[in-house]
């Protein structure tokens, strides 16, 4: 197997705030291979964005404690001084964000915002950078881009703004693109267009991608691998086929059963996950998911599960205290349209 492009090892990020230490990322490990796509899935506040921002050093600060390693082509990004990390940002690793309007500078032309990224990393003339900016805007699907370079972000639609963000991110042909909920603020048509554009550009540039999302439709369409995060930890990780065909964690089941899918019959009710993600300051004892888990047993409140390989599924790992045959029975029951309550009572 080829060497991973990005290898995150036991990453921890703690924010010291006035109300206590926020354990935003708590011992997370994942790898991204060149040209492949990893989806990081989880509700807001489960630490998935923080892990991504930390990769670019964007969470650095006096009140942030970071430990672990983030190896990018063998170099530990966490150990790099700011200056060297800046050479990687926007150049070898780029990022796009959820809200394209607030992420673009309101009083600067889009052309200049693209040019600036080029000029920060390449020794080219302003005129050359401008020509490249026009090319990039054209390439991300902004027609007549030479006329739009002088326009301001507020003159664009939301989908067009996200295209501008993508042009900025791809300005230096990065090896890795981190997309933090790239379609969350867009209408459905624009969502589909942006995802198609990302896929097309990924293939052209052979770049790897990390997509942070809570939209499982995005995951199914884009991802090669999926990591499910809950309360700052990865609780399940596997290939996209594994996660969709044989999910192992009750939280993953909850995510899958709370959104409609094409094969969902009309009579089947969507089941929301009860409760809310835990506070990252005072985390639950035992399994972090136990307060919301329909299948909780007494020992789950005391024992903290580690990621374990799933039998007969290479590369698939899960942190769940239920035994594999039990998990199989529960998931098959859910797939057959039974509710968590029925399944719990019949165990």
């Amino acid at each position, binding site marked *: 197997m080829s060497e991973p492009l990005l290898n995150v090892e036991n990453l921890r990020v703690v924010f010291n705030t006035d109300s206590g230490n926020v354990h935003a990322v708590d011992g997370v490990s994942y790898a991204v291979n060149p040209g492949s796509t990893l989806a990081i899935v989880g509700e807001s506040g489960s630490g998935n964005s923080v892990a991504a921002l930390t990769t*670019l050093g964007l969470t650095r600060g006096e009140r942030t404690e970071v430990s672990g390693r983030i190896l990018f082509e063998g170099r530990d990004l966490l150990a790099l001084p700011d200056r060297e990390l800046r050479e990687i940002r*926007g150049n070898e690793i780029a990022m796009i*964000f959820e809200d394209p309007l607030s*992420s673009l500078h309101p009083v600067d032309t889009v052309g200049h915002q693209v040019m*600036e990224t080029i000029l*920060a*990393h390449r020794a080219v003339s302003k005129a050359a950078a401008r020509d490249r900016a026009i090319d990039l805007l054209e390439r991300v699907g902004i027609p007549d881009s030479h006329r739009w370079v002088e326009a301001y972000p507020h003159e664009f639609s939301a989908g067009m703004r996200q295209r501008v963000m993508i042009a900025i991110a791809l300005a230096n042909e990065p090896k890795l693109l981190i997309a933090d909920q790239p379609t969350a603020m867009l209408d459905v048509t624009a969502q589909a267009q942006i995802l198609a554009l990302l896929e097309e550009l990924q293939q052209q540039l052979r770049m790897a991608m990390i997509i942070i999302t809570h939209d499982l439709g995005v995951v199914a369409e884009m991802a090669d691998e999926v990591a499910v995060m809950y309360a700052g930890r990865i609780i399940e990780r596997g290939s996209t086929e594994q996660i969709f065909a044989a999910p192992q964690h009750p939280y993953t089941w909850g995510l899958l059963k709370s959104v409609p899918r094409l094969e969902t019959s009309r009579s089947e009710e969507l089941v929301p996950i009860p409760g809310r993600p835990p506070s990252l300051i005072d985390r639950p004892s035992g399994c972090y998911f136990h307060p919301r888990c329909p299948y909780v047993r007494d020992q789950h409140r005391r024992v903290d599960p580690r990621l374990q390989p799933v039998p007969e599924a290479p590369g698939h790992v899960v942190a769940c205290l239920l035994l594999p045959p039990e998990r199989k029975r529960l998931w098959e029951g859910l797939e057959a349209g039974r509710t968590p309550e029925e399944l719990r009572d019949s165990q």
Partner: protein
Amino acid sequence: MDRLTAEAEDDDLQMASYTVRRILRAILLLVLVSVLTYVLFTVLPDANPPQSVAPGFFGYMKDVFLHFNFGYNHPSHQSVLSLVLTRLPATLSLVAGAGLLSVALAIPVGVIAATRRGTRVDRVAMRTALAIISMPVFWLGLIVLYLLASDVGKLPILPGANSYAGLTADPGQWFKSLILPWLVLAASQAAIYSRLLRGQMLEVMDQDYIRTARAKGLSEQSVIWRHGAGAAVPGVVTALGLDIGALLGGAVLTETVFRIHGVGLLAYHAVLRSDFPIVQGTVLLAAMFIVVVSLIVDIGNAWLDPRVRFA
């Protein structure tokens, strides 16, 4: 392509319509200000000095708006307008210089305090600013004269009171004589703008587009000064434009303390002598000046920041 041309035309149209609306509002404001000064200085005072004969309201409005006649000063045999115009260069030098100086001082202080929030640098800067805001202009002026003026100061290094020379007459003396008045008049505005800019910077630096700037791999200097200050400073310049009234008020005190023969000192003496035509004329002209400056600030803002036009 057609759509873009149409949008560009739309944009020009929007700008034109905004400008026209804003000018109409300014004219209305000017009329209201004239009515108010007429009421204050012609109707209300129970004993007008004998040399001035109060004109009727419409005669007065006609004089002001059609003939630019703001009254006549009999002792000097000059119109109020010409008295004001001779004194104007000194006041403009003082106010413009102090305005520029206040922003020039506020930008580094506000930006550095914001980027070092909570540190000793921030605390010292903000407490000093608060202390300066609390100092009355005339008091600060006297203290500065006492400390630094070349005639009466403990450390006589700069020209003090009564040393002003016109820019064209003696540029060197003009500059030197204005250093202390500029500092005195700019001090409290600079302190106010430092605090304002610090607040705006803190807000701006939390915005998503600052995160984008960092994600592009720009240097922290560029993130702070170009992206951060670039978005925060226009707010302070707007504040300066709207505070021109406060600067003019401060100019009356500064001119009085430093004996600069500007419009402020003219008004001050006129008040002491109950010379109503001059008081009325200077107040009205000052009010007009403020209205025009804020008009320019608003239109300039709309030109710089296209979002304003739609407001």
